[in-house]
């Protein structure tokens, strides 16, 4: 029951937000987001009191084909539900300083997207999962299309449309994959898909039906070409949704829907995927070094980070999965913090071009400090959350192959290079006419950063409680994916 309430709260509040009118929409939306967060905390408590045994809910939905409205929450799902329900109110809150045109539609779409995301993380029925997967796409398409800030509308339309077609194309192949599996299992329930006995050839082919959908969403090289332009063109709230939460859908799906369902297919393609992911790590990092546009730099750095997570998942080791889950969680916090900093810079200076900035630290010391902390977290400094994640990921890649570890290790070095270079050029040095009047953070902005930084150190200093929650889920994934 608690599952249902947590899932449907955002939908209810999406409706209420729309009905409340432009003036009050943002308050209603924030309230809805916070209530969902409360629901998530209650879920955590009942999961803990249930000895981490997954919570479930099932109700009949469609008889033919056999589709159940079936939800389940285990540690892994809970971590992403927590990420979603924490970040959504935060993202809503970051938009408070701006006046948003047609606000009721904007906030209502954000909550609708939260509904889709929570559904993806909770679904225990392949078909239901697919429906939610698509449902999460439509709101973000409209958010990015209609509230994007770039003047060049034709370019924006193209970029956002490319994103839509890419992801839709991927998911349609996934649908075919599910239909194919259904012919054997006679049910879409996750348990019946986990216990299917498919021939090796089938698994090797089917792997791509699913992997393309996930690889586009994550994105894995070479399916990433939609990403930088979309991140740049979308409004910052949309970029936060995309990078902070939405790409986790892909990573989560690898763990939940690919590895355990098609173990032999995964085994066959693992080396290739790891090579692709590593190419993505190096390629994203190198391009990020050359970027002048702050949002694009962050987009490429995000691309590099998720490449490492993908590689970690495909090592099929316990450490790899632990690292991936921690890093998924950590990346959500860090990237939202970074994009928020970018948004603040854009609002105050009117530019995202790093070369036109400089000297902000001398006029806005508070901003410089919190920005520095988030930057350091994203380059995985010890005691921050990303350090735990990247350490585990690198450890896992070392177990898999030394050369992989060497290549992936560059991600830390490169990320230090481009992030610190970005920080240096934009924050240090002399002020210019654009940055001289840079106002320091107000209490609202400070609150957002404080919350993010608290999250960063909580995972960074005491990862064990977080990792403890994941053990059951990882056991299950490993037992099915190594069968």
């Amino acid at each position: 029951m608690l599952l249902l309430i947590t899932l449907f709260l955002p939908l209810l509040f999406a409706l209420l937000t729309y009905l409340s009118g432009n003036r009050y929409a943002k308050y209603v939306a924030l309230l809805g987001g916070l209530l969902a967060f409360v629901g998530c905390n209650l879920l955590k408590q009942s999961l803990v009191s249930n000895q981490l045994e997954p919570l479930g809910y099932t109700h009949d939905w469609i008889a033919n084909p056999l589709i159940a409205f079936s939800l389940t929450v285990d540690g892994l799902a809970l971590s992403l539900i927590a990420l979603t329900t924490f970040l959504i109110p935060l993202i809503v809150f970051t938009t408070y300083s701006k006046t948003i045109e047609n606000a009721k539609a904007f906030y209502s779409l954000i909550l609708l997207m939260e509904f889709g995301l929570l559904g993806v993380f909770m679904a225990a029925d392949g078909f239901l999962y697919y429906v939610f997967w698509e449902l999460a796409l439509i709101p973000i398409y409209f958010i990015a299309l209609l509230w994007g800030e770039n003047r060049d509308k034709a370019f924006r339309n193209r970029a956002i449309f490319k994103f839509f077609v890419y992801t839709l194309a991927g998911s349609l192949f996934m649908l075919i994959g599910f239909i194919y599996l259904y012919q054997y299992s006679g049910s879409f329930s996750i348990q019946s898909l986990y216990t299917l006995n498919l021939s090796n050839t089938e698994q090797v082919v089917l792997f791509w039906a699913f992997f393309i959908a996930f690889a586009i969403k994550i994105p894995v090289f070479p399916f990433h070409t939609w990403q930088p332009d979309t991140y740049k063109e979308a409004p910052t709230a949309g970029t936060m949704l995309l990078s902070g939460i939405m790409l986790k859908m892909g990573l989560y799906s690898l763990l939940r829907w690919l590895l355990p369902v098609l173990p032999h297919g995964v085994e066959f393609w693992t080396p290739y995927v790891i090579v692709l992911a590593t190419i993505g790590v190096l390629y994203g990092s190198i391009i990020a070094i050359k970027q002048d546009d702050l949002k694009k730099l962050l987009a490429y750095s995000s691309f590099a980070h998720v490449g490492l997570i993908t590689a970690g998942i495909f090592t099929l080791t316990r450490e790899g999965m632990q690292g991936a889950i921690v890093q998924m969680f950590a990346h959500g916090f860090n990237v939202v913090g970074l994009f928020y900093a970018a948004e603040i810079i854009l609002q105050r200076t009117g530019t995202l071009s790093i070369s036109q900035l400089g000297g902000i630290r001398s006029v806005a010391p508070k901003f410089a400090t919190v920005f520095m902390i988030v930057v350091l977290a994203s380059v995985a400094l010890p005691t921050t959350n990303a350090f735990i994640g990247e350490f585990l990921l690198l450890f896992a890649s070392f177990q898999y192959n030394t050369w992989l570890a060497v290549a992936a290790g560059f991600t830390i070095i490169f990320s230090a290079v481009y992030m610190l270079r970005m920080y240096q050029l934009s924050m240090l040095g002399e002020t210019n006419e654009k940055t001289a009047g840079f106002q320091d953070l107000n209490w609202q902005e400070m609150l957002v950063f404080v919350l993010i930084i608290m999250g960063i150190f909580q995972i960074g200093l005491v990862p064990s409680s977080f990792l403890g929650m994941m053990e059951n889920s990882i056991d299950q994934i490993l037992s099915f994916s190594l069968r």
Partner: protein
Amino acid sequence: MKTLLYTSALAFICMITEMLNLRKFILPVAIVGLCVVFGINFWEWGNAQSYYYNMVVTDDFSVAFSGLFLFLGILILLLSGNFYKNEESKLSDYLAITLFTIVGAIALVSFGNMAMFFLGIEVLSISLYVLAGSKKKELRSNEAGMKYFLMGSFASGILLFGIALIYGETGSFDLQQIAEFATNNQLSSLFYVGAGMILIAMLFKVSAAPFHFWAPDVYEGSPTLTTATMATLAKVAAFAAFYRLFSSSLVNAIPAFAWVLSGVAALTLTIGNFSALQQDSFKRMLAYSGISHAGYLLLGILSLYGKTDNAIFFYSVAYGISSMAAFAVAIVVAANAGSEKIEAFNGLGKRKPFLAAALTIAILSMAGIPPFAGFFGKYYIFSEAIRNGHLYITLFAVVASIVSVYYYFKVIIAMYTEESSEVVFSIKPAYTVVIGICIALTLALGLFPGILQLL
């Protein structure tokens, strides 16, 4: 059988009221009458019967599809009061002909004999020829009527030729006897040639490539409401007849034509979707998108030996209501903007959020995106095709449906991101009702597709 009789009677009543000078009551009478027939129709649910020596056979299939036709007919009539308001003197003609279209469609799903089948085709087609050319003073409407008539009668000729050959082989017009003959005897090439000719005629009627050339011109030239009738009612009726004919009597021919049908489906999907990409007229775009939908439905025909009637029915309903909503919005927009181009939709999201949202939902449904009805339509068709071993053509259809997103979203982008020319907008309540019903159904069927598992 009752459905068929009462609908015909209603059509005659329409003509008589005109003679008695009761013009005002025609439309309400016709609408109420159709609603009553819609109710009566479902009385026949569950008991299959045959009438007049198997001329008419009613079963669940025919009742379900008749229900759909009557429902679409009611929507069309609701729209027509306003659509024909400048030509009130001819309203009864239009209504009677529209009702005869429905009669033809009902005959097309409840025939048990080739003669009745042909009769249904002709009643449906002739009514549509007239409706297509009903704007007498407009050149394009005349052209549409003429073109449709010439091409359509040519197809009817081929159809008759095919029926004659089948008769020559099996010695019967009765579907059951044909089926019995076909299973018990060695079939000569006469049978296959005949079946092939019927196939060609049916492919023409459903506007599948390469027999689709009439569709865009006729759709564009006809009055928009007639286009809506052709795109929803007539197309679905043709598909239902296609399924009924081939599943009951010519099922032996399907394996022989499997390659042809796959090829036609692939060609239809390609031509429909890629031509739709280049259109700047909304009606023409819908015409090509209708061609591509015929391609998806052909997958259902291709695997009909696996009993795909439910998949075809669901797809038809989803496609019918979504297109009806799209056409209704198009009529309103065209009446206000005076143009049928996609640019006429610019800024609709700001001017009329209800219309824009409705069209968005209709389009998303046609593009097959959950949680709308069209998604389950595609899902059922695809899963039937895969279940019956047509994996490659299904993959092709998936790629085609990705292409379709391009032109569908052109309209959405125009509605929401382009600046509007400030035109004062008025929507008649009848349109709001029709659009509202269609959208509500599109959502309901998308969330609970189980309610339509009739067959």
